[in-house]
């Protein structure tokens, strides 16, 4: 049995979200004083005067480490359930896992050759 009333909380939440969103916009627009100056409307950069363009390149080393972490984290997470049911699935599971590891190895090889493992 599916009754529409079961979805009432979702509907209520949707309505609430819309109302609160609009209210916040309007209240600040009505109550807040609005005196823009050049300083105020400049892009915020830790309270300093903005220097240089906004699209500078950032070093992405930590990002690389994060991506590599995901690569091997997934491997480990996938290994655990595989080890639990390994006896039941037999050869099929072994082959599947080897395919999975080969795919990961190619990715690892790629990251290695691209120099992602070197800090400097």
């Amino acid at each position, binding site marked *: 049995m*599916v009754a529409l009333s079961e979805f009432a909380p979702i509907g209520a939440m949707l309505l609430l979200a819309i109302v609160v969103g609009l209210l916040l916009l309007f209240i600040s627009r009505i109550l807040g004083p609005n005196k823009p100056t050049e300083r105020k409307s400049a892009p915020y950069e830790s309270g300093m005067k903005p220097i240089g363009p906004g699209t500078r390149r950032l070093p992405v080393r930590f990002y690389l480490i994060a991506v590599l972490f995901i690569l091997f984290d997934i491997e480990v997470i996938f290994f655990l359930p595989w080890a639990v049911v390994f006896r039941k699935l037999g050869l099929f599971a072994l082959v599947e896992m080897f395919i999975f590891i080969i795919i990961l190895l*190619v990715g690892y*090889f*790629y990251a290695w050759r691209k120099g992602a493992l070197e800090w400097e």
Partner: protein
Amino acid sequence: MSEFDTLASYLSVAPEIGLTILLLIVLAFSVARREVERAAVPYIAGFGMIALAALPLIFAPGDANSTIPEGLYWGGMIRYDVLAQVFRVMILLAGGITALMASGVRGVGRRGEFYIVIIVATLGMSLMSASADLVMVFVALETTSIPLYILAAFKRDDTRSAESGIKYFLFGSFASAIMLYGLSLLYGFTGQTNIYQLAAFMGSDAFANNLVPVLASMVLVVVGFGFKVSAVPFHFWTPDVYEGAPTPVTGYVSVASKAASFALLVRFFVAVYPETLALSGESLQNFWIQLMAVFAVLSMTLGNVLALSQKNIKRLLAYSSIAQAGYTLIGVAAIQSQELSIASVGFYMFMYTFTNLAAFTVVILFSEATGSETIADLAGLNRRSPWLALAMTIALLSLAGIPPTAGFFGKFFVFNAAVRSGLTWLAVVGVLNAIVALYYYLVVIKVMYVDRSEDEDKPIPVGRQYVWVLWATSLIVIVLGTVGAQTVYDWAARGAMGLFT
């Protein structure tokens, strides 16, 4: 699915398995030590994907006694049928051609990652055209979308490309979220995720005719699809993304992503909101027919009218692609003519894929040689490189729908389906729009052939791979517009029939 047929299951995703292997090969080659091996990457990716397009044809879906009977595989995740076959072939060919197109482009052509990401996107689209489960639908959509965001922003030091990528990402993730909400509503109502079981449950007495929530789910899903096929009013991202993205990516997004989305769209709506499903005495199909008809009219009209004033060839093709999505939506709206409708959508996408790729190949060659994407700079192209001008003319005539090019039959089948399903007014709007569109396509042709420029003695250099691409796409467009139209249409019609059984 009574038992797990291992061989048929693997063969039903043969293109995806092939793409994964190709991906690993390309990945390894892109970091090869020798320069000559790295330079081979575009060709391996391109010809690899073109070769993989044969897989759906070799392992064709057949009747119950064949190796791979038509039906659901992988626990209902994949439905392997002729429609999936048609769209997989065109998507794989589009992916391969895009890889070849990109090989000579500065900033992207020499980077192996570009081809890797294209292969992943192609994989997602190939899955999209066959997915039969809400979970698979969303996973396939995201497997397609995320690589496309990356591709749009691929020229790292070009601010326009970055803008294009960010815009695409923001709009795209928003549309995905809305669509996901619609899908989760459907799951909430029925407790089912297979799209072929949803309708039966929603039509049962247990569901007690809850028309409004089902309509809400339909509208949310339509938003997601509307974004993917860039139909008005979900088209805002299109011109900016198309203009800023590297040109091969623009070509790829405009054809393959659109084709895969249309494949999923017709499969999804025919299965989830079929003609037989009526809630509170209202047929749900009528609702989405009206939605599609309105989107079709808006997309055609807005796309064509805004294209009239464009100065940049990529923006012109962007608005033209919005209009083309509108024509295709006529085919979707004509669903009451059954297989005529879906066959016309399949044929339209098939011919549009090759037509647009040809047009974008010429744009790539021209902008690589001159650094310009302005229509006025195409002046004298006929005297500079007559073959390029001819290829562009064929592509533009096909987009406009002039015989003997494929576009004529594309529009003919779509309008035919509309008239057969009692939507004559929609066909009339389509024809009127085709006349408006003819103007801006012919202006480009006029600039190429009549206008003079000072650089007429400097021919545009055309690499070997581009010669192949242009010959292949132009020939396909001409063949589809003459002798091949019936064959492809019949093929798509067979695919369409599979949806109704």
